[in-house]
């Protein structure tokens, strides 16, 4: 209990410090939430795969990168807006994911976890290096006017486009929650995630459900790939940090806790935003997720209680 009280005090002090900083520089809050939306929208599909298929997909960010490249070239060739490519990108990435699952991941499902990690890590390398060979490491970007839209509130001026990621994250989280708890296929997926042997006994084709869930997760990542290119430049290694940050968020939220990923993303987004607000700490922003995951894992090991511990999806 003493540890819990001390943790509680620490959390209250952190929240108070964050509140002071946010009151002093409100854009920290705005950009933190926008960043949180981006992280959550990318991490939620990883949480889905980990919660149901029980594999850590270390090629997660690379799938998004491939979808972003496909979107980039489709938009350049057809003169199309990336927003129109969101659904096609999702469909194509889902199909790609289904094929990758059937050819590789399905065969490693009963293998030791280390083999699965090496497999998906290898898939990630093949994708990033494949794109590098085909398209070079040159960064690519699509310039869009609406991305620079901003809003003024009093003296405060900030970009608003990135709020689209917040909306997508919320739609992903609650859309998946609806799918998993209200539809027969979603309940079958939950059943498979909780007990694959029990699921097979009631007539559920477990491998097919795994394939569908993996493809669904990649559809969500593919859609994010198309949206990502509206905001950021892409290059072959652009996905890797998102794999690590997604894994961090899923670990912080707890396996299978999809709404919890939203909370964890806010924590990460705000932490990064606060560090970026000061010149002296700006360089630390990209590694704050390491600190976060170490604190959470340490806390879980010492059985601290965390406010992010939430319900399972």
């Amino acid at each position, binding site marked *: 209990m003493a540890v819990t009280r001390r943790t509680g005090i620490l959390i209250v002090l952190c929240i108070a410090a964050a509140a002071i900083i946010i009151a002093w520089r409100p854009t920290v809050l705005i950009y933190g939430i926008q960043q949180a939306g981006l992280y959550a929208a990318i991490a939620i599909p990883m949480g889905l795969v980990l919660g149901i298929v029980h594999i850590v997909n270390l090629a997660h960010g690379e799938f998004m990168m491939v979808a972003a490249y496909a979107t980039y070239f489709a938009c350049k060739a057809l003169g199309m807006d990336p927003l129109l490519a969101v659904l096609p990108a999702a469909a194509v990435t889902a199909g790609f994911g289904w094929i990758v699952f059937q050819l590789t991941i399905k065969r490693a499902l009963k293998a030791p976890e280390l083999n699965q990690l090496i497999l998906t890590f290898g898939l990630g390398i093949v994708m990033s290096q494949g794109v590098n060979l085909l398209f070079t490491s040159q960064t690519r970007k699509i310039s869009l006017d609406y991305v620079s839209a901003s809003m003024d509130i009093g003296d405060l001026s900030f970009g608003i486009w990135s709020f689209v990621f917040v909306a997508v994250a919320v739609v992903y989280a609650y859309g998946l929650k609806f799918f998993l708890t209200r539809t027969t296929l979603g*309940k*079958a997926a939950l*059943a498979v995630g909780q007990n694959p042997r*029990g699921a097979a006994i009631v007539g559920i084709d477990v491998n097919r459900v795994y394939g569908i869930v993996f493809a669904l997760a990649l559809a969500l990542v593919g859609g994010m790939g198309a949206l990502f290119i509206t905001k950021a430049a892409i290059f072959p290694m652009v996905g890797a940090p998102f794999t690590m940050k997604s894994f961090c968020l899923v670990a912080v939220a707890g396996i299978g806790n999809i709404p919890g990923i939203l909370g964890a993303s806010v924590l990460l987004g705000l932490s990064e935003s606060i560090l970026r607000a000061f010149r002296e700490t700006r360089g630390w922003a990209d590694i704050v997720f390491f600190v976060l995951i170490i604190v959470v894992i340490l806390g879980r090991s010492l059985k601290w209680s965390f406010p992010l511990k939430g319900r399972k999806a």
Partner: protein
Amino acid sequence: MILEIAGLETGYGKLRVLSGVSLSIGAESVGLFGPNGAGKTTLINTIMGMNRVWKGSVRFEGRDIGGLPTHEVARAGIALVPQERELFPLMSVADNLALGAAFIPHVVSRKEELLEQVLALFPILKERYRQLAGTMSGGQQRQVAIGRALMANPKLLILDEPSLGLQPSIVAEVFERLGQLKKTVSILVTEQNVRESLRAVDRGLVLENGAIVIEGTAAELARNPHVERSYLGI
């Protein structure tokens, strides 16, 4: 005959567990008895497609199901209540029962009617309908597992050690329910509680060292000196 097994051989890795098992089950309830390690669960797992058939055949309603995956065996009309229950612990009793019927093509349209029958057979499940299955007692979880299997309206119900880990009063209740069920569905039940189960089944088989060594009606088995000595403690 609903289930016909002929010359079945199977095992794990290089270890042979069943060597030439043959049996058939019609519209009846059959008890499969034997000591630990005799191969009872292996036989059930092989029927359910969880173990590969090395040699011999497993036919269900005349169809060879020896190479089918588990979900297709279930869809063909065989429901299993496993030793470890294998429920979905973070889902409600309602969802566990619903999933019992959701993927069995011939019962999807009858799930409401089947649910009523199951809840009538196990009234406690009606009381605990919204409770998470993982939070229930062992006996209640066993009832959820049997109810989930019955939701598939199976032609053959297989129960693997249904009394395992249950207190005596619950065991009696489980066998009472089995007695009711055998009027409507063929049953294959493995048990170590031979005395109790011989009251509930029509016929019995004794499996020892991977082979059927004794076969007969429940009354014949109850009088068999080997069964009396080894399983009834007489």
